Structure formats: structure tokens, C-alpha cells
């Protein structure tokens, strides 16, 4: 088993799972997960359907806990060195620090500007110049500024699928989070839009710690620095992407990568 200890660690981990079990009321979907995501690196979560990738991702900003009975039953999750289940943790602040992008783009039926400014506004920012500035920075980071700077008041639902997804990324990073979670961000997009998002993800890694879930193993190879392979709620293997793909240590990983099962 190669837990976090084996991965290179010149940087302290931003997100760390320590022996996490997660259960939906009666059945446990994650078993004893040890995982850490390094600062300014891209970490990919791969594995067959239903292996718990999304659940693991959503543990970081506690999005799972909106459902009755869903909870971390054992272990701890640390974000920036703080156990996020401590009673003094403010959930809204946690989610401000940990942005999230969903599988299907979901901009609000508002203007482009209002979409990006939403996160700041709900955290109490009202000053026009701060909002303007943040919107511009976020859109620039999402490589949308050139396309959209003249039509910020247009309804966001009129944008194309790829633009909508990049807008969602802009919305997530407008509050300047440390971690960016992405749940299969390209699965609903065409190949060109996918390529754009992948490039964007690598750029984003300069400023953010990116953790993403993907079904597409090529994407994991192209984009990520580290890869974690999950199977039936267990972390089978975690390590440097190149190493994991070229020289898997576990039999299960090898057969999954070869396509023996999926």
C-alpha cells in the first residue's frame, strides 16, 4: 500500500484524508481512505463507476452532508491543516475556501457578471470596484475575459456549453479559494471544449490546488500530477501519475488500466 508517505512532499498537503470512512445512513461507501493533495498540484481520482470517487471529492467541502444520514463515520479530513469536522468550523467559510465545479455546467439564470459576483456577494461584498475587479480576475483566469468582456450583462444561459463550464469555473474561483474540486468537469462537453478545460486546469494549478474526478484515463494522464485509483470504496493505489500509469504496483490497478474491467 502506498499511502501519502510514498508521494513526493516538498510542499505541505492542503487536503488530507486520514483513515476516512464515509457512510450513507446504512452502508459504508468509503473505507479507510488515506490521501493527501499537494499544494498547486493537480490530483486525479479515477476508478470504475460507483467506486466512491465523487463521494470522496465531496467530502472535502462537506457537500455530502446535505443528505440525511450521510456522514464521515471514522477518520478525519484536514483542509489547510484544520479538521473540517471540528465544531468551530464555519461551513460557509469552508466552502468559500474550497470551490467546486460540477459535471453539468450550472450557471444561474442571471447575467454573466452576476454569476461570477455571486460568491462574493453572498459573503457580504457589496463595493462595486471590488466586485468589478474580482469578476475581471476570475474571468481572466478562466480565459473568458476576451470573449465576454463586452457582454457581461448578457444572460449566462445563452453561452455555449464549454463557455458555461468555464464560467462555472470562474464563479468558483472568484472567491479566491485554495482548493478547486471538479467532478467530471468535461464529461458533458465536446472534444474541443474538453481540451480548453484541460489546458485551463493546468493553468489553474499555478494558483490553486486542483482535485478532479474523471472517467477518462487519458485525461488523467494529460492533466494530473498525481493519480488516485479507487475501487469499491477503497483507495487501491495513489502516486505520481506517470509512475502509476507506466508501472502500477497493484494487480487491480494494472488490470483496470489495461481495460480488463471498468
Amino acid at each position: 500500500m502506498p499511502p501519502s508517505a510514498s508521494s513526493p512532499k516538498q510542499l505541505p498537503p492542503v487536503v488530507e484524508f486520514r483513515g476516512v470512512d464515509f457512510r450513507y445512513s446504512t452502508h459504508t461507501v468509503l473505507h479507510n481512505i488515506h490521501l493527501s493533495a499537494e499544494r498547486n498540484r493537480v490530483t486525479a481520482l479515477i476508478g470504475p463507476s460507483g467506486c466512491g470517487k465523487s463521494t470522496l471529492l465531496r467530502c472535502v467541502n462537506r457537500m455530502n452532508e446535505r443528505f440525511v444520514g450521510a456522514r464521515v463515520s471514522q477518520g478525519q479530513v484536514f483542509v489547510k491543516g484544520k479538521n473540517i469536522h471540528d465544531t468551530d468550523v464555519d461551513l460557509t467559510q469552508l466552502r468559500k475556501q474550497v470551490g467546486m465545479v460540477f459535471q453539468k455546467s450550472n450557471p444561474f439564470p442571471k447575467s454573466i457578471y452576476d454569476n461570477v459576483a455571486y460568491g462574493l456577494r453572498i459573503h457580504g461584498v457589496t463595493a462595486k470596484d471590488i466586485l468589478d475587479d474580482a469578476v475581471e480576475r476570475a474571468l481572466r483566469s478562466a480565459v473568458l475575459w476576451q470573449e465576454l468582456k463586452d457582454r457581461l450583462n448578457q444572460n449566462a444561459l445563452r453561452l455555449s456549453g464549454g463557455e458555461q463550464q468555464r464560467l462555472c469555473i470562474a464563479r468558483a474561483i472568484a472567491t479566491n479559494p485554495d482548493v478547486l474540486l471538479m467532478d467530471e468537469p468535461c464529461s458533458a462537453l465536446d472534444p474541443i471544449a474538453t481540451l480548453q478545460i484541460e489546458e485551463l486546469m493546468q493553468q489553474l494549478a499555478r494558483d490553486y490546488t486542483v482535485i478532479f474526478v474523471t472517467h477518462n484515463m487519458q485525461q488523467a494522464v494529460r492533466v494530473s500530477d498525481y493519480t488516485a485509483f479507487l475501487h469499491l470504496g477503497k483507495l487501491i493505489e495513489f502516486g505520481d501519475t506517470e509512475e502509476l500509469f507506466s508501472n502500477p504496483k497493484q494487480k487491480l490497478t494494472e488490470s483496470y488500466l489495461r481495460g480488463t474491467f471498468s
Partner: protein
Amino acid sequence: MEERLAPLERQSLGCMLLKKKKLNALGFDTQKFIRFFFASNASVTIIVLVLIMLMLLREGAGFLKTYKYELETYRHAGLEFCDIVDRPLAQHQQLTSRLRRALGASLDTISQHARNRRDAYLNMKRQIEEESSLQREALSVALEQTPSAGDKIIEPLRTQLAIAGVKSAMSLTVRSFFSLDEADKIRAELSQLSPETKDIPAFLKQLNDHFSTSDKAAKKSFATLVKATEIFEEAPETLQEILIEIKEHVLQTKTAANEFNTLKSGRLKLLEAAENTQNPVEKADLLKEAAATQAMPVDFHQRIKLVTSRADELAEKVHQYITAIQKAAANLPTRGSPAHAIALLDEVHHELPLHVQEMQTAADEIKTWSPDKPVSFLTVIGAFFFGSNWITNSSWQDSFGFVPLLTGSLIISLIAIVIATPISLMAAIYSNQFASEREKELIKPVIEFIQAIPSIVLGFIGISVLGDLIKDVSEVTWLQWIPGFPIQERLNMFNAGCLLALMAIPTMFSLSEDALNNVPEAYVDASDALGATKLQTVFRVIVPSAFSGMAAAVLLGIGRVIGETMVVLLVAGNRIAIPDFSSGAGVVFQPAHTLTGIIAQELGEVSRGSTHWQALFMVGIVLFCISLIINWCARTFVRRFEQFKA
């Protein structure tokens, strides 16, 4: 080892490709027939709607023509001529009644005491007479008997009456404005009342005398006011005499014209029947009958000359009237006591110039009035849509002005919407976003159940509970700052508006709840992931996303309210008049009639095809158009919503 099933037999290709014989009747096979059946069900609704529209239009369209004819007769016969003077003259009555009240208040300052004493005595007398009425009756029956019943019977009755009289006289509570001596005197006098004595009791006579002297004194000290009031009251008498003469004349003209018209249409029908019949005997009969109904048309020209020739005389009388009331008004005191009377007189002073001016214009107008001015269709349409009177079955002139009904409907709907919109929207937001499953199970069925209450039952509640409740509340002292309080009528627009709000709530609630339900869950995810609280998510994302759906819900609620009939008919008070807006927001506590109510109330009583009947159908058409527009708006809103649904 699993048992292998025998393979299914397959038909040969040739068998499959052959067309099967199908059931075929009138060119329809089963498929076509079923399709046709479903299509016809869908089209039935459309056809019915078109038929309803055509029906309404057919009945209502004739209205403009008939109403035009009525307005023409109104002008040609000279009714309009009379109304020019008569309408402003109505103001005179209001002014007079103010003067009378002012005079009464003034006189009371001197003679009130004497009058109160006399009235109190009379009241006590009546009370005693009532209490001993049985004995009194028996005695008077005995006395009237012929031959006389004899002392043996009469005496005991007399004693009984005396006992009853004394008994009730002793139990009298004498009002404070009699001294103790006087109270004893009154008791003594009243206990001796008997049917035989015809004279007025001495003390009453004294009280009467006292009152008449003090009344005389009062009238003397307010002599100018008394005189002015008298002059004011008598001022229009000569004017009215002439007016009544003319009115009788023009009314005869109008009746004759209407009779002629009825005969004419009857004759035309007979002639038509004669034309169509084959039987020569019958035909001859019909023609004879038609000839018998031949009548002379009314010569409007000849008859109106009699009216117009008196225009100068009438104008002269109007001027006389104006000088008379101005003179009387000049003599009215402007200061003195009591304050109440002076306030009333001030009002008269204030309103008089306007009245004088109106009469002046009327005098000028009758001189230039001509019966031959044509009545255009525009005038007729204006008279309907902007007319401020809805008068039917009048001996003078019917008028079908739509404004009082429209204002009633609009105000009631406005009240209902103002009340229902916040309640239903908030309830919908709560039940959709915040309520627990158990609360939802309570809230939704209960609100939706309101829809099942028959509107007539709500009407009962309005009459028996809500009306009294509103009236009682309006009499609470510390609520008097609310405009319109205390209210006069139990049945008013506010009451109806409250009940209609109750009826609109289920519609608005269900539809806006649906709109909230339709907001994609992905929006909530995105908002949550950004760290929004529940309230922020609801009010910044969900409600704005559902806005157009909720607006459509409110519009459909308005549609429901405008079209509701039974409740407004029972509860709105049914006074056909434009509400008096001078009291500001208090206007909502006035009774009114509505577009729907008037149709329900009057359609059953009018004769088919009459102007009144057609006018009601016109109201129906307008109502239909309003509903159509509201529905169209609601649909547009929803369509805008659909456009942005990803």
C-alpha cells in the same frame, strides 16, 4: 444442468410481407379511427370556446344599435332637454337638507330643553298606556257595549285599570329634567289616565305651551336663518312646476314612440308570416291583423316644438332661481353659535358657487339645445364605456354606463390580490423550501382544500361572520386612525376582497409552488458549493429563477378573482354607483357592484333581446376580454421562463 427451451417457430418471409386484411369502414381502418376519435375530443373544447365567443358577440353586438336608438329617442323626444336642468337641480336638495340641519341645530340651542321635557312626558304616557293596555282594552270594550253593560261590570274594570295605572306610575323612572314636585305631579296625572277622559292632562298642556313659546322665541331670534331657509327651499318651486309639465309631455312622446315601434315590429312579423303561409284564408287573416296594427308614427318635430318654445321661459326661471338662492345665501349668518350649524352653513357657502355656475351653464345650454343633433356610434360607445350610471327599469330613461361596475370589480380584485399575493407566495416558498416533510403534508392539502369550498358557502361566511367582525373591529376606539373607520355597511368591497383573496390563494399557491419545484436542483448545488446559507440560496437563486412562474401564478389568481361571481354578489353590497374616492383608502369599505354580479343578478329578470339584455351581454364580452388578456399575459410570462430552462 439447465434445460434448453425449444426455439420459437419463425414464419416464412413471404408470409410476413403480405398485407394483412384490416377492418375497414367508410375508408377508416382502426388506426385512423382511433386517431380521429382522440382528435375530435381535443377539438371539442376548441369548438365550444369558439361557439361561446360567437354567442356572446351575437347577443352583445346588437347592443350598440339598440342603445343608439334609445339615445336617439332620448334626444328627439326631449328627455335630454329636461335633464340639462334637472341634473344640476338635484344639488339643491342636498343644500336644503344641510340648511335644515343647521336650522334645527340653531333652534335647539333655545327650545331643546322645553322640547325634551314634553317628549319625555309623552314617552312616559305611552309607556303607562302600554303597560295597562289589557285593562284599558277591557274597559273600553265594556263602555262601548250597547245596551250599556251596567255599573256592576264597569266598576270593577275601572278599579282594575286604576290599580294598574297607579302601579306602573309608581315604578316610573322620571328623567332628571323634572323637579321632584313635577315628578309627583306627573305620576299623579298619569295614574289617572282612563279612556273616558278626552282632555289633555294639565301638566302636559303646560309643557306644550312652554314648548311652543320657546319655539317661537327661538324662531324669532334666528329669524334671518329661518327666513333664508324658507326662501331657499321655495326657490325652485316655479321652475320645477314648468319642468314637471315639460317632463310629462316628453315622456308621452317617448312612450308613444316606443309603442309605435313595438307595433311596427309586430306588424312586420305578421306580414312576414303572411308572406310565408300557403293557406289563402290564413293569409287574409294575417294581413287583416297587420292592417289593424297600423299606427301613426310619432311626429317628433311637432311635439318637440312645444318643448323648445318654452326654453326661454325655462331659462328665465332658472335665472330667477339663481338670484333667489343667492339672495337667500347672502342672508345666511356666517358666525355665531352653535359651531355645528356654522360648519354646515360654511359647507353651503362653499358649494353654492359651483351649483350656481352649473345652473347658469344649464340655462345657456337649453337655449342652444337642438333635438336634431345626430347621435354617432362613438357617442354610444362612449356612453357605455365611460357612462357613470347604470340605471334600469326607470320610468324616465335607462342608462347603461359601465364605469361603476368596472370600478367595483377592479377595486375588489385589487384588495384580493394585495391580500392573497404575499400570503400565497410566502406560503409556497415556505412549504417548498423550508418545511419538513410532515409540515408539507399538512400545508399543501389544507391550502388546496380551500379550493373545494363552494363559493356560496364562503358567501355565507362573509355575510354572517366576516361582515360583523369587520364592523366590530371598525368601532374599536384605538383603530380610528384607519381611513374609513367606523364603517357603515357590513357588506362592502373589503369584505368581498378578503373572501376572494381566500379563493385566489390555492391557485396562486399551487402554481407558484410548481414554479419553485421546477427550479433545477443544480442551481442549489452551485449555490451551496459557494457557501451560501439556505436563506441566501432561496432568495438569491431559487425565487429569482422561479419569478416568471410566480408572476404567472399571480396573474392566473387575478383571472380567478375577476371572474368570481357568487361571493361578490352576496357580499359586495350591490350598490350600483361609482365609489366615493374622497375618503381616500377608506373607499374599500363602501359597497359596490361588479361586472360578474350584475350579470348574475339581472340576467334572469330581463326580457330576452331587450336593450338591458344586450347590455348585460356586452358586460359579458368585456369580462371575457379581460380574462383573455390576463391569461395571455400569464402565458407570455411562463414562455419567457421556459426559454431559459437549460
